[in-house]
């Protein structure tokens, strides 16, 4: 065996080991745990748990809020994305940035804003009469805000890929704008719509922040796992619920991938860009609608910022910084914020490198088709596992004294591993598409020159992919700062995290410090994002394109 084949095989073994430890092992432990520790330790026991009336009700509730949030968010995001891509909107850059704002803050922050506005002591409470924000309606609104940027990203990309020739052809045939929308635009973004709806659905049913803060007595699966594990210490029941939650997300992920495989390219090499002509009714409607949505998204952050520096919302709004004195409250203090940054940095660097190395192996090397097929499957599987289920699976797997990796439990390393794995799929898909865009003959050319594949990877493919690598690192960073679900069961006394602190402080009644912590996460993410964009602009300018058109 020559050195090149040996290195290829070694890399495949290492990545297989990674997925074994990060996904296959924990998920197996989760299944085993859900079957054990009952009266008879049998599968019948699991069936009994899964048919528990409380769990069935929570499952129904989760599906309901998931579906409703998905429908509303997808519709709003389609409208907003249409405004950004197909209307002559002024200040498009600002609208685009506003649409991404919720991504930089924990999803809890939108729920906290709802409490500040519509809660018992909410600013707008007097206008609401008997209506209450607590319950499914609160969960849906909070999740619409939190998941909006995810749907927007997908739909904006889908709508951007427009072939101007089709619209010109329609115009020449005398078709109206409405009929072109139905005949060309909508079919073109069909996969984007399915994808956005399913992503929002998966995020919503896995979310724990909104149900905890504004859910009231409305039970959902995510909260059920949390209560079973941390409240009742019934790990077997928690495992059963975590498994139950896996079914709809796995199904949603399966549908999304199936839809992706059926999507044909919207653009060909001969496509021409769509030139937008002024259209007063359309542009006015879009400007109005997008302004309202953008104001809502910015408003959420503004309310939290305002409340976090108000002495006692809403009665005494004089300025104070006391809520930022985190060390006075439970949740881990400033140390938690430091830990979160540390987690985000490790996740960003480790995640981006791992994802690209694996994507490179899968895309650019040939041998061991079966192993590569399995790795490809694992790369997509992680998106189908809700964060809470994954976190709990890690508890069962790593907290087992018989496991050689038991020492990782409670450390920063396990948090990094879990976070990378949780956000793996989206990063993998973007790395894969970046590598697919490179000339497939690079490796062949190097082989003909007697140069090994890693030489091309190190000197050519990775340097050209630097913008995508930075994007991936930023994606990991921002998500590591904000995630709650995947880490909530895994942090130790020395690895408390800021996002979890928001949850815990709110739970303890320290709502303003919770908002303040949420704002700190937001500002750190904003700073990193801006710095990242600056670097990206420079890198894009310096790297020449080697894409196959």
């Amino acid at each position, binding site marked *: 065996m*020559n050195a090149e084949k040996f290195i290829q095989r070694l890399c495949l073994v290492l990545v297989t080991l990674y997925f074994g430890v990060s996904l296959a092992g924990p998920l197996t432990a989760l299944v085993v745990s859900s079957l054990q520790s009952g009266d008879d330790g049998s599968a019948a026991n699991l069936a009994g748990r899964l048919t528990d009336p409380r769990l069935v009700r929570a499952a129904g509730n989760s599906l309901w809020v998931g579906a409703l949030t998905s429908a509303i968010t997808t519709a709003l995001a389609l409208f907003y994305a249409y405004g950004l891509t197909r209307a002559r909107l002024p200040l498009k850059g600002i609208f685009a940035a506003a649409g991404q704002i919720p991504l930089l803050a924990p999803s809890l922050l939108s729920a906290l804003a709802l409490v500040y506005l519509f809660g018992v002591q909410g600013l707008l409470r007097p206008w609401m009469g008997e209506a209450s924000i607590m319950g499914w309606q609160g969960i849906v609104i909070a999740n619409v805000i939190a998941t909006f940027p995810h749907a927007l990203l997908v739909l904006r990309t889908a709508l951007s890929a427009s072939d101007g020739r089709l619209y010109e052809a329609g115009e020449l045939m005398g078709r109206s704008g409405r009929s072109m929308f139905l005949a060309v635009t909508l079919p073109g973004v069909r996969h984007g719509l399915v994808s956005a709806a399913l992503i929002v659905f998966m995020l919503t049913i896995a979310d724990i922040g909104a149900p905890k803060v504004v859910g009231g007595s409305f039970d959902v699966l995510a909260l059920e796992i949390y209560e079973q594990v941390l409240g009742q210490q019934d790990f077997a029941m928690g495992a059963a619920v975590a498994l139950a939650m896996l079914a709809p997300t796995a199904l949603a992920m399966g549908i999304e991938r199936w839809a992706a495989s059926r999507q044909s390219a919207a653009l060909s090499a001969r496509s021409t860009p769509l030139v937008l002509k002024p259209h007063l009714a359309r542009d006015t409607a879009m400007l109005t609608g997008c302004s309202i949505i953008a104001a809502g998204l910015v408003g959420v952050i503004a309310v939290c910022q305002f409340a976090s520096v108000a002495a006692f919302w809403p009665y005494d709004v004089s300025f104070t910084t006391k809520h930022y004195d985190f060390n006075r409250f439970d949740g881990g203090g400033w140390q938690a914020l430091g830990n979160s940054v540390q987690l985000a940095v490790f996740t960003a660097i480790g995640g981006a490198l791992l994802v690209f190395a694996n994507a490179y192996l899968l895309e650019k090397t040939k041998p061991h088709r079966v192993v590569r097929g399995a790795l490809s499957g694992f790369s997509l599987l992680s998106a189908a596992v809700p964060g809470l289920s994954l976190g709990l699976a890690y508890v069962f797997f790593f907290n087992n004294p018989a496991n050689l990796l038991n020492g990782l439990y409670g450390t920063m390393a396990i948090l990094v591993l879990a976070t990378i794995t949780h956000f793996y799929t989206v990063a993998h898909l973007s790395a894969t598409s970046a590598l697919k865009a490179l000339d497939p003959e690079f490796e062949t*050319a*190097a082989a003909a020159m007697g*140069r090994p594949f890693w030489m091309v990877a190190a*000197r050519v493919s990775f340097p050209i992919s630097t913008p995508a690598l930075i994007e991936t690192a930023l994606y990991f960073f921002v998500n590591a700062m904000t995630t709650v679900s995947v880490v909530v069961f895994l942090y130790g006394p020395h690895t408390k995290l800021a996002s979890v602190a928001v949850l815990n402080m709110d739970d303890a009644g320290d709502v303003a410090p919770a908002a303040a912590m949420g704002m700190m996460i937001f500002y750190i993410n904003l700073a990193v994002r801006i710095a990242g964009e600056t670097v990206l602009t420079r890198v894009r300018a310096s790297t*020449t*394109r080697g894409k196959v058109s």
Partner: protein
Amino acid sequence: MSEAIDVASLSKTFGGQAALSDVSFSVPEGAFACLVGPSGCGKTTLLRILAGLETPSSGQVLLNGSDATRLNPASRSIGVVFQSYALFPNLTAAQNIAFGLHGKDWPRSNKQARVDEVLALVGLSGLAKRKPVQLSGGQQQRVALARALAPRPRFLLLDEPLSALDPHVRGALRAELKDIQRRTGVTTVMVTHDQEEALALADLVVVLRAGRLEQAGSPRHLLEQPATPFVADFVANMNIIEARAESGERISIGATVIAGVVHGLAPGAALSVAAAQGNTRLTDAALPAACPARVRAVEFAGRQLRVIARLEAGGTLIRAHAPLGSPVASGDVIGVAFDPQSLRVYAGAP
């Protein structure tokens, strides 16, 4: 001249589909060979097998007399120019060229000198520091050629290197390519689907069709003695006409009998007849040795007209030339006559 490349009974299948079937030919040392054929005929597969990028299902590749069938690309002493050029976009022209100069044969001091030397060879001395995106298509093609030649390979393999260029640049580079090959003396195999390019460049033309070898030989040999109707049509651009053997040295095209054609076949046997366009004349349809045809199109072809007509017997399309100003128009019924001595006869219908 000894044989540098020997391809013996080479076959390759992809998932049960034959890409190459029992292909054999030899390329003498220092020769320029062209693999030519229509899309999907297996020419690129054959080139990739020569490069060691694919392994044949059966058969042998001998390089300078040694069996290289299973040898990896790095051990074959080959330089390859790809259709897309595969230039590394983040490296300069010089860095691209130096990428293949490695190992103990190329200490740092020799590398730079060699890069300069090949850049001069392809006429790009001043452009060493440019990245591919800053070079024109023709310049990129030259960098790719320089990169392939830099390690002083014994064999140069070119996969349709000129196909991405516009016709004007292609013509100029074709001559330069031939000149560089002659100066370096490297045994070269080039894939092309353009028979004109193959005839202009090659010492040896290897014609492939559906994975099988149709004929291998010098351009003159192929033009004068095409072995099959396909070679006559694809390489020599001849008219291929359905005919029938008659007694003696006679054949018939429909009702028209043409004398003076040697065929050696039994009367009544089906034939394919190849006639060079230059030996296909337009005459009066009433003449006894003329085949009646109806004109389908008349095109300008430089200083003469190209007439495309359909023979009334058999319906074959015929291409012939006529002087500018000839009174021939679409829809006319004309006669087509052939020079019997120049006709090539093949057994079996086209």
